[in-house]
């Protein structure tokens, strides 16, 4: 289908000649001429306008009645007036009507100060109320869910929230109950509104009717600062603005980036910030002392860690995960290789670098925005809702608005089944074989007999399903996007199968074709590690140097991946495990193998933010890890977009930058990255090392070092990445990608346990476990009881005592979603007999 082309026309608004794309809605086109048309219900992100609020009335010459600017497309030569007397009279009238039942309780309303209703009433309203009648009343505030409070008195019935629920997240939970002036927003029979995306309605609501419970009464717009960064809690890497008051993150808002998130966030991203500020967070270095972990000064922890590393030279291994940035990954890889002569480094996602390399060609890479303009989208072996939720919204958008044909092929039932043209099931863990079988089916009978024989059986897919899928793809139009879970690359030969599929469907498009509107290719979703792609590209991958350059190693087994690492640790070949924000027991890796690896008595050094079982039982040294709100560095989106993390708050407690810790350890092992205040005098360096003075600008220097060391990032600097990110496929470095290997990955040596190929639910994560607001979702997703929060153990702690740190932790009843039957009506029984 490709991206639609646009034609420019010119029209007149308030006496100005303005150029605008044809058929753009007047409300948007007016902005191009610096004219503002007030709107409430219009929100292009929600799809077609509904014209519910009438705030946007304008006068168009030649049309006798006033028209709604939000649903009138501009045409060539149109003459529009937005400030004529008729329009003003209408605007005053509409504002008066909207305020008819509005309580005007701005002083206690959380929206006060950032409320479109306030702004529009001041800007376009008449300024007086003439009614003396009573306003309608509702009970307030009511919990729409444990995360959202609804105040129905304030609602102006703009339908935004209901439209979001019906047409964007498609959970169909919010509805308008009753009729006319009795209407109110509700869920069917008042179930709690719980979905992965519910928090977005808070930002959509143009009044204070829907407010965030965790943010309730925390701050006013003039008390806060906004800090833009990138959410790294899942691979979707949404752009966010953190609301900061007194160095605490109080709220997360979307920072719309059409190339990444389309302005939506999931509930984990929106409410997970609370975990940055709980008492449980590790904010001091810890070392094991007589069986228990004890807080120590940095110097002692660094000394101990350096000693352990020194002793494990050649026998150390490292795993990265969480929100590890490219810089940290790059430095850690060099520390392991250059200072410790160890090749065993990998991420928790354990993406085989060779397979990733085969699939990394820029011609094959689909970007997120391509999904919505493709002809057909195949979701292969991943559950987007749990693994990269915002990408699921993009798929839904394509299907609903642009008629994208959706095919789903997953082991479990998928949330996308409902909108898919075809949904096919395979066996648990059979995604890789399914890709191979599919490649065979597309290549024709011969291939099916040959190399691909038996794949369909191994994948557990019925021949009829496989045929239907192949047929749907073959007839699926020119532009097909395949979104695959990188988990399936663990099956050797699956990468080759994906390449075969791409070749059969002609999914290659060079830069020029893409600029001309082709939208096709492959998009791999890493398994649980937000920055898996960036870490791999920065050289944190077994046997691979930065920029997909294979290392020349004497023996292919010399660079164990995450699976071989577990075996090596259990077998005593490896003696030290360095964990960079990674917990091998809480990810997609096989738990038994890793339990055995940790029980082997190997020393563990970890950067961690919470004391999980792994840390409590096994860590020798624990460095407090930064949250993404404190981090500075770069990450890479699954589609190759480099994005920048900017620190929004100061590091809590004694937390220090992850890259600094790694560089400092390297210095103690006689490896100098040239980052540690090398431009400073020795005295200043000593002060810096002691944490007395700040580290200068070295975080930027770490990023510069990274960008200079990864050949495919050539020509990109921090300035260019800026707030919106930049895809390396579109810059000069794309040519520096080494020629991909043709042969598929070697079969993994027999005896290494096969990973359990299942995703982890979105809310089964420490950010949800330690965020008071999300704990009920964590409990549901993981089936585990969350660790107690200390602050919760003091019941009803008065907010005054805690001052601002009462923050998120004020006693709050946890409403667990459930069905409450309030009334059982027999057949034919009316609600009310009149």
């Amino acid at each position, binding site marked *: 289908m490709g991206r639609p082309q646009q034609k420019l026309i010119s029209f007149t608004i308030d006496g100005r000649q303005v150029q605008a794309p044809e058929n753009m809605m007047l409300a948007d086109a007016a902005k191009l001429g610096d004219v503002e048309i007030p709107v409430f219900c219009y929100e292009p992100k929600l799809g077609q306008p509904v014209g519910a609020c009438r705030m946007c009335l304008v006068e168009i010459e030649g049309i006798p009645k006033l028209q709604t600017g939000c649903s009138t497309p501009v045409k060539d030569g149109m003459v529009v007036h937005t400030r004529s007397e008729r329009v003003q009279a209408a605007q005053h009238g509409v504002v008066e009507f909207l305020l008819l039942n509005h309580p005007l309780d*701005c*002083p206690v309303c959380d929206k*006060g100060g950032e409320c479109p209703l306030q702004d529009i009433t001041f800007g376009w309203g008449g300024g007086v109320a003439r009614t003396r009648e009573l306003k309608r009343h509702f009970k307030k505030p009511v919990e729409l869910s444990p995360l959202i409070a609804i105040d129905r008195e304030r609602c102006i019935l703009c339908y935004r929230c209901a439209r979001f629920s019906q047409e964007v997240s498609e959970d169909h939970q919010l509805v308008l109950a009753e009729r006319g002036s009795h209407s109110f927003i509700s869920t069917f029979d008042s179930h709690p509104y719980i979905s992965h995306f519910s928090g977005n309605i808070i930002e959509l609501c143009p009044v204070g009717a829907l407010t965030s419970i965790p943010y309730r*009464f925390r701050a006013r717009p003039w008390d806060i600062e906004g800090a833009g960064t990138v959410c790294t809690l899942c691979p979707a890497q949404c752009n966010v603005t953190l609301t900061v008051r007194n160095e605490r993150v109080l709220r997360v808002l979307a920072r719309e980036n059409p190339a990444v998130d389309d302005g939506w966030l999931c509930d984990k991203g929106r409410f997970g910030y609370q975990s940055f500020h709980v008492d449980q967070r590790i904010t001091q270095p810890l070392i094991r002392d007589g069986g228990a972990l004890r807080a120590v000064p940095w110097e002692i922890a660094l000394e101990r860690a350096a000693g352990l590393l020194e002793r494990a030279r050649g026998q150390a291994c490292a795993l990265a995960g969480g929100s590890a940035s490219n810089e940290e990954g790059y430095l850690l890889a060099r520390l392991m290789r250059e200072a410790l002569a160890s090749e065993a480094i990998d991420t928790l996602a354990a993406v085989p670098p060779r397979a990733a390399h085969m699939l990394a060609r820029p011609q094959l890479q689909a970007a997120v925005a391509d999904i919505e303009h493709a002809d057909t989208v195949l979701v292969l072996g991943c559950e987007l809702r749990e693994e990269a939720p915002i990408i699921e919204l993009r798929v839904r958008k394509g299907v609903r608005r642009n008629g994208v044909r959706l095919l789903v092929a997953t082991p479990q039932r998928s949330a996308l089944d409902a909108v898919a043209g075809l949904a096919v099931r395979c066996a648990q863990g059979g995604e890789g074989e399914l890709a191979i079988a599919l490649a065979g089916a597309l290549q024709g009978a011969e291939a099916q007999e040959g190399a691909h024989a038996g794949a369909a059986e191994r994948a557990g897919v019925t021949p009829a399903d496989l045929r239907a899928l192949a047929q749907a793809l073959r007839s699926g139009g020119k532009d097909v996007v395949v979104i695959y879970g990188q988990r399936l690359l663990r099956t050797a030969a699956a990468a080759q199968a994906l390449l075969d599929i791409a070749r059969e469907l002609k999914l290659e498009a060079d830069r020029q074709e893409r600029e001309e509107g082709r939208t096709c290719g492959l998009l791999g979703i890493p398994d649980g590690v937000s920055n898996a792609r960036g870490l791999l590209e920065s050289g944190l991958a077994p046997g691979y140097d930065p920029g997909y350059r294979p290392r020349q190693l004497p023996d292919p087994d010399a660079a164990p991946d995450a699976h071989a690492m577990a075996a090596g640790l259990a077998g005593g070949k490896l003696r030290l495990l360095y964990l960079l924000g990674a917990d091998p027991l809480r990810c997609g890796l096989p738990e038994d193998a890793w339990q055995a690896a940790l029980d082997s008595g190997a020393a563990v050094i970890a950067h961690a933010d919470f004391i999980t079982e792994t840390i409590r039982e096994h860590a020798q040294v624990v460095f407090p890890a930064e949250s993404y709100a404190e981090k500075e560095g770069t990450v890479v989106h699954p589609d190759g977009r480099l994005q920048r993390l900017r620190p929004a708050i100061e590091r809590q407690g004694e937390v220090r930058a992850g890259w600094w810790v790694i560089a400092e350890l390297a210095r103690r092992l006689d490896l100098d990255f040239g980052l540690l205040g090398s431009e400073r005098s020795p005295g200043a360096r000593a002060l810096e090392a002691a944490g007395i003075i700040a580290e200068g600008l070295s975080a930027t220097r770490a990023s510069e070092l990274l960008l200079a060391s990864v050949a495919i990032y050539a020509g990109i600097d921090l300035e260019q990445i800026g707030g919106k990110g930049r895809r390396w496929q579109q810059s000069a470095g794309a040519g520096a990608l080494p020629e991909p290997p043709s042969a598929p990955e070697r079969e993994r040596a027999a005896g290494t346990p096969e990973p359990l190929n299942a995703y982890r639910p979105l809310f089964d994560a420490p950010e949800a476990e330690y965020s008071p607001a999300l704990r009920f979702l964590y409990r549901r997703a993981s089936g585990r009881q969350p660790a107690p929060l200390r602050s919760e153990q003091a019941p009803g702690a008065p907010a*005054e005592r805690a001052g*601002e740190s009462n923050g998120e932790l*004020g006693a709050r009843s946890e409403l667990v979603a459930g069905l409450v039957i309030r009334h059982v009506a027999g057949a034919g029984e009316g609600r009310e007999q009149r």
Partner: protein
Amino acid sequence: MAEAQLPVSVWSPGEDVVEVRRAPAPGAARSFTRAFLETLRGLKTTFARVIEGPVTIQYPEEKVPVYPRFRGRHRLHRFEESGLEKCVGCSLCAAACPADCIRVVAAENTPEHRVSAGERYAAVYEINLSRCIFCGYCEVACPFDAITMGHDYELSDYDRSDLIFTKEMLLAEPLERTPLRREDE
């Protein structure tokens, strides 16, 4: 010519001539008048006041009464009947304050712990009086007349941090010390 090439910033006296004009020197009679008679004339006022008695106000034992609209240190108020705080913690005063010296942290009322009449109340309400310029904007901004400017002006202290007044201090009845000017004064 050489002078013209000097940089402009170098000052040169140029052709300005400072001329001092003096009045003609007074004669002997005029000098006498100024030295004695004029002095006596001035002293007349002084001595006339002597019989009026002293006007010194013995501060701090005695205080100057202030006008009713005098803007002294703030007070927060409660409803008389219910005893609930009038302030709902809306932060509008903090927004209005040009000296940025008010800090409000709001929290939610619960049925067990009801502090104010609205949904929210000020869990923390602080005014840094060492920064306040006593402009009264906060009083004007408050939608609930919860904060008003009181009459107390004795605000010196030994420690700056003691000048950060908390909600409790602002709510407390001040020791009624500042006299108010009567109608006819």
